[in-house]
């Protein structure tokens, strides 16, 4: 079974040379730490920066240079700043190659719910609805089940949707799955996790086709 860093590490393998990537808050942010050194990737943040670097050294924080999580950041050579409309032109116009975000629920049709729990304080969708409505390649990073042990991979989402039929891949603490027209196709098992455990934790239709390899991290 993977921890959050393990999920991030596995997703980092999906990041290819030449990709522009938008990382959501939470586990997705950790992905940046595991991207191979020998490929070129640029990170976009929807508040208006392309070419994000690591956090600044202590004392070098700049209130005018933050990411969408409102964290102080730095930029790398070749970076650029731009306004919000231009930022979402990059997203809506499908210039961003890969979007990685967290979710509360994903359905076997690729629907995603990650912004609202009825009855609880709702903070808002931020840029998530724009991202999932436009991105061609969306990977969800999340735990396979919620704190109560219930599956987050469902036939239909029970929470208000963020977007419909948009998720391409899901990486959890238990497995890597591809969203196909017929449901979640199991691609890989987390180290030490059996197909049965994944099946038991998945409410949506899980396609198990042949031998399922363990992840190579």
């Amino acid at each position, binding site marked *: 079974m993977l921890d959050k860093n393990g999920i991030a590490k596995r997703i980092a393998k999906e990041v290819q040379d030449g990709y522009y990537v938008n990382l959501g808050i939470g586990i997705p942010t950790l992905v940046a730490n595991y991207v191979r050194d020998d490929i070129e990737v640029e990170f976009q*943040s*929807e*508040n*208006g*920066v392309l070419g994000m670097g*690591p*956090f*600044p*050294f*202590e*004392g*070098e*924080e*700049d*209130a*005018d*240079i*933050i*990411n*969408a*999580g*409102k*964290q*102080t*950041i730095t930029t790398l050579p070749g970076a650029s*700043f*731009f*306004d*919000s*409309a231009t*930022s*979402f032109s990059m*997203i*809506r116009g499908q210039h961003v190659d890969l979007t990685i975000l967290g979710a509360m629920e994903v359905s076997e049709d690729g*629907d995603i719910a990650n912004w609202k729990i009825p009855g609880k*304080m*709702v*903070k*808002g*969708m*931020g*840029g*998530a*609805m*724009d991202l999932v*409505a*436009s991105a061609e390649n969306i990977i969800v990073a999340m735990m396979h089940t919620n704190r109560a042990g219930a599956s987050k991979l469902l036939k239909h989402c029970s929470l*208000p*949707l*963020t*977007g*419909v*039929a948009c998720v391409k891949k899901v990486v959890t603490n238990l497995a890597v799955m591809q969203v196909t027209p017929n449901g979640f196709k199991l691609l890989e098992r987390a180290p030490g996790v059996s197909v049965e455990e994944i099946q038991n934790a998945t409410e949506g239709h899980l396609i198990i086709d042949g031998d399922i390899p363990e992840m190579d991290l």
Partner: protein
Amino acid sequence: MINKKVANVQEALEGVSDNMTFMFGGFGLSGIPENSIAELVRLGTKGLKCISNNAGVDDFGLGLLLQGKQIDKMTSSYVGENDEFERQMLSGELEVELIPQGTLAERCRAAQAGFPAIYTPAGYGTEVAEGKETREFDGKMYVLEYAFKADFAFVKAWKGDAAGNLVFKGTARNFNPNMCGAAKITVAEVEELVPVGTLDPNQIHIPGIFVKRIFQGETYEKRIEQRTVRAKAN
């Protein structure tokens, strides 16, 4: 050169009154019009309908207007980090309309550019699109969203000149340029008002035509919301 410079924040906010609709630039606490907000607090203008990506924190940014119960409605994409906001929203004192961030940006830009409405894919199939017109183009579904209508836009830039030309810094740019000229009156406050002719005409982010009034803010706190750092290597 048409002069947009006003003497101070009081003159810049002339004409604001209760129940108006305002736009505020800024993302989180970055690039917010601190001086205009402070003056609105002082004026005590009430019943405001505010368009702003976020709602500040309890003791800074738009949170200051919330403390004074000056805001009736917020149109935002993300409103966490604010206890008073949550209290007013849950009690029903404050109306909140949450919309996708890209939709917010483009509804500003539509108002600036004279477009009545836009078709965006964001929110299709979700409750955000409920009751809204939708339409298919090339097999993909889009939601019709209308240009904002606002009385004042309050924006903050890094540098500006008396012609109203603006230059922004870093990610403090965010929604500010998109709101310029998107309201009846655009008030720009700048960290530094430079002499006309010193800004490179090739490097102006917002031409002065989109700005009605400009002034240099007295002070800027520029508070950091999430201070994330790494240790210096020895």
